[in-house]
């Protein structure tokens, strides 16, 4: 009896361990978090004071960040809204970061040390114009002033509180203001621009009160392209629209004088279309043509002189004033595997202040931008540091001929992610290593035991924490038994592939794709998607896995495609091809050839299908499945969903045996005046479903309708496709469809009146969950639709099963017209959503949880049981046993189930789930600007011991038990002896 109860109690207590949520000291054990800022657009150094040296940067992802100049770490960072594009940044008063954003409409000041917003002021004006920000040390009545030109209005804004001191409108319809100039030490401002593209306008304005002092204009015969370059405080250089005549315009003392110089006078050979690339070094400007970059100096009254012509890719920095009246600027040029950084004084082209050659990783591509800063060396000479932005969006600080730090900011714009297994551990290597580590292992566990028994000193606790975080086990480069260690292959917008180790998030390799930017025919290459090309298993274990990168030569969908094949272990691009057709869709087929290369079908804009790899074997294995290939296309703009199948080989003119014609099978045309497609969702191809039957409370069975060809489509009223608040509930609705993509049959259609998008949806097994906005309740809602196969429902009869008169063994097929029933339910949800995903386990046995990316950039795990359509108000006893939760109107948000705990994945875009080999565990990777990775066990880790399981305690207990056995044995023998003597 005692043993029975003991066993019972044992199991009872061992199942009580809460593992679902995290303890604070477990942060970093399973998860890692990386922060990025994106491609830097503008950078301003802050190195004047004795405090910490910083650099303030604005990026193309609408971020303002300050970085530590010594190590490149982020001090603080703010992500502005998607429409709040940063136009200019600067530092004012030595303590505020000033940002001008939203096309010059919003001016904000942020506290430099901690990033607290100090003030915000909005600048409106009569019309839209190019925004310009000017921060010289302009002081009006002891007040530091910012001069901002935006929306056709010149504003003087106080640095202290953001108050507009004065404003001056430039309402003239055709006026395009190009520059706002404040000559140093003067009390006036020049506003120069073009009117009607052919007239040069100059306004001289009193800086104290905005009063117009003088207005001059001159007409020119040609038209201007727009960009002007300021070569001194009173001279500008412009190009005409043909790109062949340079205009030097000076407005000294308010008088406009100009000089025209044909570009061909400066260059012997015809340069083609030229553009001015550099706008702000005194006395020097540069023009760029197809072949070369030409630096031109302005001498005296409009005289131009070519100082250098270079054929290398050259990047120029802004001017930096290094001492009184002296300016310097930096040039960066590429030469083979290194870059040359040159810093020149503005007045003397031939001398160099600095000339350094730095070895540069080829995988970073060309230099895109350079920003320089100076410091005084101990010997009073000038030293320079340069911040460079590379083609792969990475950011590097160069100083004294070396790279001080680098940031892989390309990872802030991941567009697609896939995973790859690591190599298998070679046998026979690790034995000695294990013996060596046994003592260490035991020591570690003894330390842990001390920790659990509260005997550890603070140093011990620190050692324990360090040991747990830096476990070499998790960052090994080999496959592990549980499938936790993998490579995450990420494709970034810059066309670079990164392989990240799931154990600690380090970059294993990175590769800038060569094929898109080398060829002449492909001018604007963009990368689109990433597919698994070769996944080795069985007989192809010796091959390295590889991935397929699909790209195209331009933004339009009929541009020619490019393919690259990259080895997942080494990052070497072993094959790349430029296609002769466009790529509209890529369909990975579930077939492989003998070398385990997966077959892919590429659909071009003319609806021809092309089979890859182009091997005879591939076509042989494809022929047999020819009639089973179906696909669909969704045309969002016209509201048409079409289904296709393969017809014949491409006939007529092309003798390409890997090309096939398609035929249209079905089409669904949605009425464009009442419905607009906003979201579609499909099942993941690799999702495993463990059981088809669902046992419900009263011993009844329901059969899930599980089809991999299910498509979820959400449409809204065209009026309601805008933002919340733009429509009334009466004129907006949301319609959802479940469509079979083989037959085009609409399995289910449902209308939510008074609801609107944006819709986030996830489809898994036989259910779909989607999130939308309910205008009547003015709350977000999440709905679930579950779809069941009614045609199998009569298999419940035992006699039928015995006689064999059942259809359980018949495969689920889209050809047979299954009778389906659906169940649905809606619940309120508090937050807006950025992404939604569902956990994925290897066999699909573990119960599912939804991973919800909220507007606060956190990832919340929500049990699917909360989104069950069968939640009654008062569950019966049987339903309670089944685990049905009583009905509530809204979904709970439990803070402990945020899998990102107290971290934010700024700018969250997508959540990717990958199955580990351990059935209980899903690997979750969330990316946006930041990256976050963790292991997540939806039903706790029921199939392995947890990380904090104390092996040492187990060993000690066993030893103690054995000792006790011996002691009692000896004692009993002694007692027996005594008994005998008695």
């Amino acid at each position, binding site marked *: 009896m005692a*043993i029975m109860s003991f066993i019972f109690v*044992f199991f009872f207590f061992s199942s009580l361990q809460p593992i679902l949520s995290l303890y604070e000291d477990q942060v970093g054990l399973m998860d890692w978090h990386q922060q990025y800022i994106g491609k830097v657009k503008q950078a301003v150094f802050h190195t004047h004071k004795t405090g910490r040296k910083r650099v303030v940067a604005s990026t193309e992802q609408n971020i303002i960040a300050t970085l530590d100049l010594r190590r490149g770490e982020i001090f603080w960072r703010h992500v502005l809204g998607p429409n709040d594009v940063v136009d200019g940044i600067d530092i004012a008063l030595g303590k505020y970061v000033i940002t001008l954003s939203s096309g010059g409409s919003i001016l904000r000041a942020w506290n430099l040390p901690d990033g607290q917003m100090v003030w*915000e002021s909005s600048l409106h004006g009569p019309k839209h114009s190019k925004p310009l920000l000017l921060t010289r040390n302009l002081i009006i009545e002891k007040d530091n002033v910012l001069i901002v030109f935006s929306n056709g209005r010149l504003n003087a804004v106080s640095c202290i509180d953001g108050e507009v001191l004065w404003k001056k409108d430039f309402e003239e319809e055709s006026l395009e203001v190009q520059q706002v100039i404040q000559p140093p030490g003067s009390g006036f401002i020049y506003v120069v621009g073009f009117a009607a593209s052919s007239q040069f306008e100059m306004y001289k304005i009193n800086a104290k009160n905005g009063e117009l002092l003088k207005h001059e204009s001159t007409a020119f015969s040609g038209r201007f392209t727009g960009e002007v370059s300021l070569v001194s405080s009173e001279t500008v250089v412009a190009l005409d629209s043909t790109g062949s005549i340079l205009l030097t315009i000076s407005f000294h003392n308010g008088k406009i004088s100009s000089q025209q110089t044909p570009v061909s006078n400066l260059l012997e050979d015809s340069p083609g279309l030229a553009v001015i690339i550099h706008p702000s070094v005194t006395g020097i400007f540069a023009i760029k043509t197809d072949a070369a970059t030409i630096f031109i100096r302005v001498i005296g009254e409009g005289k131009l002189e070519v100082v250098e012509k270079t054929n290398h890719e050259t990047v120029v920095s802004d001017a930096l004033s290094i001492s009184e009246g002296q300016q310097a600027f930096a040039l960066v040029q590429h030469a083979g595997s290194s870059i040359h950084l040159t810093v020149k004084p503005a007045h003397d082209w031939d001398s160099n202040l600095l000339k350094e050659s730095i070895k540069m990783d080829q995988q970073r591509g060309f230099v895109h931008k350079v920003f320089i800063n100076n410091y005084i060396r101990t010997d009073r000479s000038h030293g320079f540091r340069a911040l460079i932005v590379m083609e792969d969006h990475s950011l590097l600080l160069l100083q004294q001929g070396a790279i001080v730090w680098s940031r892989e900011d390309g990872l802030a714009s991941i567009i697609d992610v896939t995973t790859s297994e690591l190599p298998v551990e070679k046998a026979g290597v690790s034995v000695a290593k294990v013996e060596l580590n046994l003592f260490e292992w035991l020591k570690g566990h003894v330390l842990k035991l001390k920790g659990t*028994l509260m005997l550890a000193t603070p140093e011990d606790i620190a050692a324990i924490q360090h040991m747990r975080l830096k476990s070499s086990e998790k960052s090994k480069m080999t496959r592990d038994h549980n499938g936790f260690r993998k490579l995450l292959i990420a494709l970034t917008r810059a066309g670079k592939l990164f392989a990240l180790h799931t154990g600690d998030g380090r970059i294993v390799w990175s590769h800038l794709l060569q094929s898109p930017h080398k060829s002449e025919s492909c001018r604007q290459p963009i990368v689109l998607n990433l597919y698994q090309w070769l996944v080795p298993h069985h007989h192809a274990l010796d091959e390295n896995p590889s991935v397929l990168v699909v790209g195209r030569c331009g933004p339009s969908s009929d541009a020619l495609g490019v393919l690259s094949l990259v080895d997942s272990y080494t990052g070497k691009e072993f094959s790349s091809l430029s296609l002769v057709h466009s790529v509209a869709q890529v369909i990975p087929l579930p077939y492989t050839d003998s070398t385990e290369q997966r077959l892919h079908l590429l659909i071009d804009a003319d609806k021809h299908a092309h089979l890859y790899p182009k091997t005879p074997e591939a076509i042989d294995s494809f022929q047999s499945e020819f009639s089973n290939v179906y696909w669909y296309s969704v045309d969002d703009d016209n509201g048409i969903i079409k289904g296709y199948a393969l017809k014949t080989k491409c006939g007529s003119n092309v003798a390409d045996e890997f090309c096939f014609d398609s035929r249209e099978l079905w089409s669904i045309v949605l009425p464009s005046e009442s419905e607009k497609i906003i979201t579609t969702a499909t099942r993941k191809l690799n999702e495993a479903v463990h059981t088809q039957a669902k046992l419900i409370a009263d011993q009844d069975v329901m059969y899930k309708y599980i089809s991999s060809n299910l498509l979820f489509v959400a449409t809204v009223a065209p009026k309601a496709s805008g933002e*919340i*608040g733009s429509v009334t509930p009466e004129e907006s609705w949301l319609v959802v469809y479940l469509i079979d993509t083989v037959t085009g049959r609409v399995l289910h259609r449902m209308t939510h009146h008074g609801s609107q998008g944006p819709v986030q949806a996830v489809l898994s097994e036989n259910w779909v969950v989607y999130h939308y906005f309910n205008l009547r309740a003015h709350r977000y809602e999440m709905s679930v639709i579950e779809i069941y196969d009614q045609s199998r429902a009569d298999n419940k009869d035992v006699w039928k099963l015995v006689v064999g008169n059942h259809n359980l063994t018949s495969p689920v097929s889209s050809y047979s017209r299954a009778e389906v029933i659906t169940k649905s339910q809606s619940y309120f949800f508090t937050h807006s959503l950025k992404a939604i995903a569902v956990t994925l386990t290897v066999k699909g046995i573990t119960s599912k949880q939804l991973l919800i990316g909220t507007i606060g950039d956190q990832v919340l795990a929500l049990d699917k049981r909360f989104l069950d359509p069968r939640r009654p108000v008062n569950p019966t006893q049987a339903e309670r046993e089944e685990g049905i939760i009583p009905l509530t109107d809204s979904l709970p948000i439990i803070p402990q189930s945020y899998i990102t*705990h107290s971290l934010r994945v700024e700018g969250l875009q997508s959540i990717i789930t990958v199955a580990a080999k351990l059935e209980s565990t899903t690997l979750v990777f969330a990316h946006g600007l930041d990256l976050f990775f963790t292991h997540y066990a939806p039903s706790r880790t029921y199939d392995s011991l947890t990380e904090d399981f104390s092996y040492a305690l187990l060993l000690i207990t066993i030893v103690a038990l054995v000792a006790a056995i011996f002691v009692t044995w000896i004692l009993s023998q002694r007692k027996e002896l005594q008994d005998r003597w008695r």
Partner: protein
Amino acid sequence: MAPIARLLLLALLSTALTISSGSGDGYTINGRVKIPQGLGTKGFALPGKTSNVKVILNGGQIVTYLRPDGYFLFQNIPAGTHLIEVTAIGYFFSPVRVDVSARNPGKVQAALTENRRGLSELVLEPLRDEQYYEIREPFSIMSVVKSPMGLMVGFMLVVVFLMPKLVENMDPEEMRRAQEEMRNQGVPSLASLLPGGGRN
């Protein structure tokens, strides 16, 4: 001390303008976020800093940050019903429904969507603070005793120390009989210990 700290708000100003017809083509929504300082500062790696609090209009249409006194401002907002969300690590804020009326500008119409409570002025306070981590139970002797290992040890102790006592209390005749039986049988099997398994 704690209630006083709870009352100490980030700013001392108590009135908040809500909606006014601004310049340009829209209206202006003006409000403030108040985070009581007594809340949520314990047990957090990152206590909620006001510099990281975002105020989001209509699910991401406009994002703005708080000024040091907790005020925020949305400009150029068209008339209609809008939704404002506040995100701050460590706090749970209810989204707020704000009606911007074209007919009578300046009228305040705001309500928390979570509990449908109307707001007379647009002052947003967290409904509760969020604890993202489980609290580790402090070490106690009961937890060791209750753990599987502790139970095993306890059971062993019972067997070692209490069983002989039971044997001693037995009737000597019965004892002799049992001993004889044991001798006949050899080693006692586990089955004889189990209820119903014994011979007697």
